[in-house]
């Protein structure tokens, strides 16, 4: 099976992780003063989600954890070794799993959808797929073979 070159995968991961840093940082800043992100299509979904008890873990806004996760993913894109490949896979797996949980919570518990959270979940899902492809395609390969 042929995979995209590792350089292509790393560029895509870096681009999407940078977008993710932007989205998570916006959510964290918007909620920092007790407010909420602005839903682009109107509605109160973002406010309802921001005011729910699920928006914080141990008193820390989960968007801050998200921003840290995206920064770690961005960092892994700068290295072509097994530590970066597995690190990127593990962080994106954690982010993807938590996004699945949060989407479940939004739909079935809070009964409100925040577009910014959906955007982050989609980014994390694509990042997980890219990192999984990178690990499966190039894990264990020497640097020169990976290019």
């Amino acid at each position, binding site marked *: 099976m042929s995979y995209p070159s590792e350089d292509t995968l790393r560029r895509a991961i870096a681009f999407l992780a940078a977008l993710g840093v932007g989205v998570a940082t916006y959510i964290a800043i918007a909620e920092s003063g007790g407010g909420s992100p602005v839903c682009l299509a109107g509605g109160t979904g973002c406010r309802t989600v921001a005011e729910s008890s699920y928006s914080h873990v141990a008193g820390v806004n989960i968007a801050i954890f998200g921003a840290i996760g995206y920064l770690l993913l961005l960092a892994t894109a700068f290295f072509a070794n097994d530590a970066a490949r597995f690190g990127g896979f593990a962080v994106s797996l*954690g982010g993807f799993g938590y996004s699945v949980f949060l989407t479940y919570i939004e739909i079935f*518990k809070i009964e409100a959808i925040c577009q910014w959270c959906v955007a982050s979940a989609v980014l994390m899902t694509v990042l997980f797929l890219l990192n999984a492809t990178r690990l499966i395609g190039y*894990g264990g390969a020497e640097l020169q073979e990976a290019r």
Partner: protein
Amino acid sequence: MSDGDRRTKLMQLASGAVFLAIVVVVALIVVNGSSSDSAGEPTPEAAKEIDRSLRGIPQRGMVLGDPSAPVELVEFGDLQCPVCKGYAEEILPAIIENQVKNGEVKIDFRNYAIIGPQSIPAGAAALAAGEQGRGWNFVELF
């Protein structure tokens, strides 16, 4: 260690991580699915506290306060609305304590169901409680 060995070890680690992630996510969903969000849930203690705060204030339908109060405050609210919740928790208690209890103000709650289909039975239940002279106990508890 050869490339092949390293690759096998990486794949084993990745498989373990995927298995662990699935277990954690399923556990989180099961735990959160079985336990309700108690933060906003009515409890007998909360009902007693509301009874205490409204004790002695006349209630007629959805109007709280002395019917002959010179000032009438009309609230159009949705029982699911988070902004109305903020108003009920941060602003309303002081009005009830300082202006309604001494007969200066009466408050008329009018259902304005805009959030979703569940707002309608919630509003109907409030009106039914109002018929029994406890409409505001219901609204405050909700």
